[in-house]
C-alpha cells in the first residue's frame, strides 16, 4: 500500500512540476511586443518574445510576424522603411520582423511550422516553394486572385508561385548572377575588359593572365556546386533534367563540369586551402580576384571597393545562360491573422513606395512590370553597366526543383568535392551524382 501511495505522490508532484514548466513555456512563447521599435525588430524569434501587459484584443492593432532571409544584414533599414510606410497606411496592423541567415532559414522555418509556431507571413524561394506548397503549409490565396492579377506583377513570376493554377505566394523579388570584374587587375595584366559577347574561352584566357600576376592573385572564382553547375551546363546546351530524367551525365554536361574544374586545376581559381575560409566576395573586395560570378545582391557589399569594378552578362559557350532566382512571400496556412498578413505582403511586393525603396537600395529587383522603376535602377552606379542585369534576363535558366531539394543539392556538392580533390573525373562525379539523385525523385 505504502508503495502505491508513494507512487501516487510522486506522479502528483511530477504533474505539478510539469504544469509549472508548461505554464512558463507558454508565457514565453507568445510574443506581444510591439514591432514599432525598429531596433528590436531585427532579431530572431527567441529574442523578440518580451511580454508586455496585453491590452484587450480588439483595442490594439493586430501584430503579425514576418520571417525573412533576404533582408539581413544589408537591407534591414530598407525593410523597416517599407514597414513604416505600410503601418502608416494600415494603422490596424503591426509588423514584427524576424530574420535568419539563408543557410538556416528553411530548417528553422520547418521546425517552427512543426511546433505550431510558424510566422504569419514568410519568404520562400522558388526552389523551396514546391515542397512547402505541396505540404499544405502555405495559405491558398485564390480568394485574392483578382487582386493579384491587378497588382502589376510579371505574369511569369506570379505563375512561378502558383501550384496547378492556385496562387500560394506573391512574387516578391528576383535576382540574377553576372560576371563581376576588377578593372585594376585587368589593366595590370594588359587585357581588354570583358564584354557581354564574351565566351568561355575569353574568360579562361583572361583568368590565366591575371593569375600569372602574382602569388596572391587569382583570375576567377565560381563556386563548384549545384547552382553554378546547372547554369554552366545550360551555357553548354545541357539540361539537368530532361522529361523528368536526370541527364547530367550527357557529354555537354561533363564538358561543363570539366570547364569549371579546369579553373582550379590550372591555378586560375583559388583552392579551398588557398581561400582559407575567406569568402569569395571578400577575396574580390581584397583585390585578390580578377573576376567572380556572383549575384547582383552583392552590389551593395562591393560599392565601397577600393578599386573600380563593373559587370557583364556571364559568358556562355554554345549558348548563353544566366541564373534566375525568384523570392516569393507566403501567408502561413496556420495563421489566424491571414487577412492582415496578406495586406502586408501585398504592400511589400506591389506598392510603388516599397518598390522604389527596393530599387534605390539595389535590394534585388521588384517583380513588377512598371518600367519607370528600371529607369531609376539603371541610373545608379556602381556598377556602370547595370544594363547587363536586364540583358542577363533575356536568357535565364530556372533551378531544377524537386521535393527533396536539399538532399539533391547536397549529393551534387559531395560528388563535385571529390572531383575538385582529384579523386574522380568529371564524368565519374556526374555519374555518381545522377545515381544519388534518381532515388530522390520518388
Amino acid at each position, binding site marked *: 500500500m505504502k508503495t502505491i501511495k508513494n507512487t501516487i505522490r510522486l506522479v502528483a*508532484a511530477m504533474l505539478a512540476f*510539469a504544469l509549472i514548466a508548461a505554464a512558463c513555456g507558454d508565457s514565453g512563447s507568445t510574443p506581444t511586443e510591439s514591432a514599432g521599435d525598429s531596433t528590436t525588430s531585427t532579431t530572431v524569434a527567441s529574442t523578440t518574445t518580451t511580454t508586455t501587459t496585453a491590452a484587450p484584443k480588439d483595442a490594439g492593432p493586430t501584430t503579425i510576424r514576418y520571417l525573412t532571409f533576404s533582408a539581413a544584414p544589408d537591407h534591414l533599414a530598407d525593410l523597416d522603411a517599407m514597414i513604416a510606410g505600410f503601418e502608416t497606411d494600415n494603422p490596424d496592423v503591426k509588423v514584427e520582423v524576424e530574420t535568419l541567415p539563408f543557410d538556416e532559414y528553411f530548417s528553422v522555418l520547418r521546425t517552427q511550422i512543426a511546433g505550431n509556431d510558424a510566422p504569419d507571413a514568410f519568404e520562400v524561394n522558388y526552389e523551396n516553394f514546391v515542397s512547402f506548397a505541396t505540404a499544405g503549409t502555405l495559405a491558398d490565396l485564390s480568394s485574392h486572385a483578382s487582386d493579384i492579377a491587378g497588382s502589376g506583377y510579371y505574369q511569369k513570376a506570379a505563375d512561378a508561385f502558383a501550384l496547378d493554377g492556385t496562387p500560394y505566394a506573391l512574387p516578391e523579388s528576383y535576382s540574377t548572377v553576372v560576371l563581376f570584374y576588377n578593372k585594376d587587375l585587368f589593366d595590370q595584366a594588359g587585357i581588354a575588359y570583358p564584354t557581354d559577347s564574351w565566351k568561355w574561352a575569353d574568360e579562361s584566357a583572361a583568368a590565366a593572365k591575371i593569375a600569372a600576376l602574382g602569388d596572391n592573385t587569382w583570375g576567377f572564382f565560381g563556386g563548384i556546386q549545384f547552382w553554378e553547375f546547372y547554369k554552366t551546363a545550360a551555357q553548354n546546351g545541357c539540361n539537368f533534367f530532361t522529361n523528368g530524367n536526370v541527364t547530367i551525365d550527357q557529354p555537354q554536361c561533363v564538358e561543363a563540369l570539366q570547364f569549371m574544374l579546369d579553373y582550379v586545376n590550372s591555378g586560375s581559381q583559388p583552392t579551398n586551402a588557398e581561400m*582559407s575560409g575567406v569568402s569569395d566576395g571578400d577575396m574580390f573586395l581584397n583585390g585578390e580576384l580578377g573576376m567572380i560570378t556572383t549575384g547582383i545582391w552583392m552590389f551593395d557589399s562591393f560599392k565601397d571597393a577600393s578599386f573600380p569594378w563593373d559587370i557583364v552578362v556571364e559568358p556562355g559557350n554554345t549558348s548563353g545562360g544566366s541564373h534566375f532566382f525568384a523570392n516569393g512571400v507566403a501567408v502561413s496556412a496556420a495563421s489566424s491573422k491571414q487577412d492582415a498578413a496578406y495586406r502586408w505582403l501585398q504592400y511589400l511586393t506591389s506598392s510603388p513606395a516599397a518598390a522604389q525603396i527596393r530599387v534605390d537600395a539595389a535590394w534585388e529587383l521588384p517583380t513588377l512590370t512598371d518600367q519607370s522603376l528600371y529607369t531609376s535602377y539603371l541610373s545608379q552606379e556602381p556598377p556602370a553597366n547595370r544594363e547587363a542585369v536586364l540583358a542577363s534576363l533575356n536568357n535565364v535558366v530556372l533551378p531544377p526543383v524537386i521535393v527533396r531539394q536539399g538532399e539533391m543539392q547536397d549529393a551534387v556538392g559531395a560528388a563535385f*568535392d571529390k572531383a575538385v580533390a582529384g579523386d574522380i573525373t568529371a564524368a565519374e562525379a556526374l555519374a555518381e551524382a545522377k545515381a544519388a539523385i534518381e532515388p530522390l525523385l520518388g
Partner: protein
Amino acid sequence: MNRVGLRRGWWVLFVSPSLTFLALFAIVPIITAAVLSFYDWDLITDPKFVGLGNYRELTHDSEFHASIIHTLVFIGGYVPVVMIVGLGLALMLNKRRRLQGLSRVVFFMPVVSAWVAVALIWTWMLNPRFGAVNWILEKFGFDPPAWLFERGWAMVAIIGVSVWKDAGFVMLLFLAGLQAIPDSYSEAARVDGASKFKTFRYVTLPLLSPTVFLVSVLLLINSFQVFEQVWIMTQGGPVGSTTVIVQQIVRNAFTFGRLGYAAALSWVLFLMIFAVTLLQTRLQRRWVHYEL
C-alpha cells in the same frame, strides 16, 4: 501520518524536479524517437509509417558508414592521447609544487570554456594563411600542412584541439584518484627498494585502475557523440573526411527534414554506445583492482 511516513514523503518532493525534467527532456524524447524511427516525417506533413524502412536504409547508407569510420578514427586518436596527457598532468600536479593551484586552474580553463568559442579560436589559429600555428611553424623552418583544409590533417587537428580542451577534465579525475591512494603503499614500496617507475607501475597504476575505468567509460560515451568541434571547424570536410555520426543525425533531421531517419540513426548510435559500455563493464573484472 507518522513521522517515518512524513519523512518518506519528503524525498518525493526533493527528487521530483530532476525527475520531471529527466522525464520531459530525456525519457519522453527517447521514447518518441523510438516511435518516430518507424515513420517518415518531414516536420511539415503528417508522418507516414514505414516499418523498418529507415533501418533498412541505413544498412546501405554509405555516408553514414563513412561517418562511423571517422568517429572511430576520432575515438582511436582522442581517447588514448587525452588519457595519457591527463594522467601526465595529474602526476605532475599531484606532487607539492609551487604554483600548484594556479597550474590546476590553467589546465582546467579550457574545460569550462564553451566549445563554440574554443573551436572558433582554434580555427583561426590553424588557418593556413593567417593563423598563428603555421606562422610559428614556418619561423622554425617547417612546411606545415593546411590543417582543416587538408584531408588526413583535418582529423588530426580536431583530435588535437579536443585533447587540449578535455585534458584538464581527465587530469582532475586522475588527481582525485591519486589523492585517494594512501601514502603508506608507496612508502612501503620505497622501503622495499622499488624504483620510482616500479612503484608507479605496480602500486600506483593498479590502485588507480578504478579511475582509469571510470575515465575511459566517460570518454568513450562522450567521444561517440563528438559533434560541436567538427560542425564548427570543418563541417565534415574536406571532401567529407571528417563527417561524424551525430553530424549525420543533425543533417538528416534539420537540413533534409528527415526526422524519422534521423531518429533511426540516433537509436543505432545509442545501441553502439550501450554495447561498448556493456563490454567495458564486463572486461573491467580482468583489470580493475579495488585493492592490492
